[in-house]
């Protein structure tokens, strides 16, 4: 039990960090994707995991392949991007959107919603369903963006493993859905496919929060569990981007465990529903308590 080897020397751990840093630089210099402002601990995990999955013995070996193999970029981006979510993840948040945000959105003749970092689209379809049931979808335009082209393609297809359907159906009901989730998908073999009519007012587009700018005027921005991967300065920059994209009194919805305590730009937002991390642009404009 008490046998122990000599600890790994500090320089060996530092070497791994140097390799990750060089990988990140190579990705930026060769392909233009900048991960240098991502929170280091989870980024390192993902890079090491990618190296293992691609059977590269070291991160440096992975870096060499990233530089020379044209096909590797999409695999790397998929490995580094925000992973799969659920439909109606955190049902209380969707309930809060429906009960507190939708009534305000209803006052606009045309509603623009930006789903930033939409990954494989689970939340886009969730939102479309709730808007449909609230009678708002006809006059809504959803912009669903991600930097990962493969994820966008999958999001457009709206095909998911059917083993997810049970949990998602429960989430849907807990979120206050008025039908059953099965009304919105067809099941075949091991997959479900979301009703493609739900896509009619969605524009899927490539947008990178790290490097791209404002592209729409939104009444609601949803960006859940994306900023948790960003360093403080990048989180703040992205918040400013959301601020500049929102109309006066527009809404921002973040992940339920996200903190704005270290983001100076958060001063522009007022919490509407703290537990659901729903904010409104502009001071003291709370909808209701």
């Amino acid at each position, binding site marked *: *039990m*008490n*046998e*122990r*080897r000599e*600890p*790994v020397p*500090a320089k060996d*751990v530092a070497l791994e960090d140097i390799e990750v840093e060089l990988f990140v630089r190579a990705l930026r210099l060769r392909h233009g994707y900048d991960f240098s402002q991502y*929170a*280091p*601990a*989870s980024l390192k*995990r*993902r890079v090491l995991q990618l190296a293992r999955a691609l059977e590269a013995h070291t991160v440096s070996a992975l870096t060499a392949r990233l530089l020379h193999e044209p096909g590797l970029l999409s695999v790397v981006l998929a490995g580094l991007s*925000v*992973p*799969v*979510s659920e439909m109606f993840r955190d049902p209380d948040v969707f309930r809060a959107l429906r009960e507190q945000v939708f009534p305000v959105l209803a006052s606009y003749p045309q509603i623009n919603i930006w789903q930033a970092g939409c990954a494989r689209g689970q939340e886009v379809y969730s939102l479309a369903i709730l808007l449909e049931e609230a009678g708002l979808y006809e006059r809504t335009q959803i912009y669903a963006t991600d930097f990962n082209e493969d994820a966008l393609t999958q999001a457009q297809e709206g095909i998911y493993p059917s083993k997810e359907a049970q949990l998602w159906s429960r989430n849907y009901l807990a979120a206050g859905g008025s039908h059953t989730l099965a009304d919105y998908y067809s099941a075949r073999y091991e997959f479900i496919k979301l009703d493609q009519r739900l896509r009619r007012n969605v524009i899927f587009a490539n947008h990178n929060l790290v490097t791209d700018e404002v592209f729409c005027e939104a009444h609601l921005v949803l960006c859940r*569990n994306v900023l*948790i*991967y960003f360093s*403080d300065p990048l989180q703040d920059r992205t918040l400013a981007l959301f601020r500049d994209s929102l109309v006066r009194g527009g809404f921002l919805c973040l*992940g339920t*465990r*996200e*903190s704005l*305590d*270290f983001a100076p730009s958060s001063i522009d937002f007022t919490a509407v529903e703290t537990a659901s991390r729903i904010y409104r642009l502009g001071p003291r404009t709370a909808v209701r308590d």
Partner: protein
Amino acid sequence: MATPQAIVIGCSAGGLTALEALFAALDPALPQPIAVCCHTGSSTVDLLCELLGDHARLPVVEAREREPLKGGVIHIAPSGYHLLVEASRRFSLSVDARVSFARPSIDVLFESAAEAYRDALIGIVLTGANSDGAEGLRRIRQLGGLAIAQDPADAEQSAMPQAALDLAGADHCLPLAAIAPLLNRLCLP
């Protein structure tokens, strides 16, 4: 090891009872931050924090992203997120895939904390019915930290501390009741 600067604890099935007993016996003057990953299966850790708070003589809070680890405070990993410690010794969260079927995963917390604190970290694996935490404990030992496993014979569920012992070994393998006295001895100035 160096003077301990942080403590990380992992547990699963049977964890609540074990943590209650452990925290009740910890000296309230302990200056180190404590971070806990406990698989609960519920959607929040509000109740867990409350229950542990009734027994602990140190404050028990849910760990928040970007917050520095605070000395003398017990931080609980939120449900549904991996909890990581950055080199800056602040918390971060991720919703990356489950590790060892778990999110939060003990391995993720331990491995990141090991890199942040190196030989100034104490890692503890308590009762549980899976093998999460074994890799993490190994990493803690690799980087010179101190590893404690609950004696499997004493644990409500023996699989987790046994897996940790098999893979990582430990500097101390103790019944639960002996762990708090050891921590008080190692950690008080």
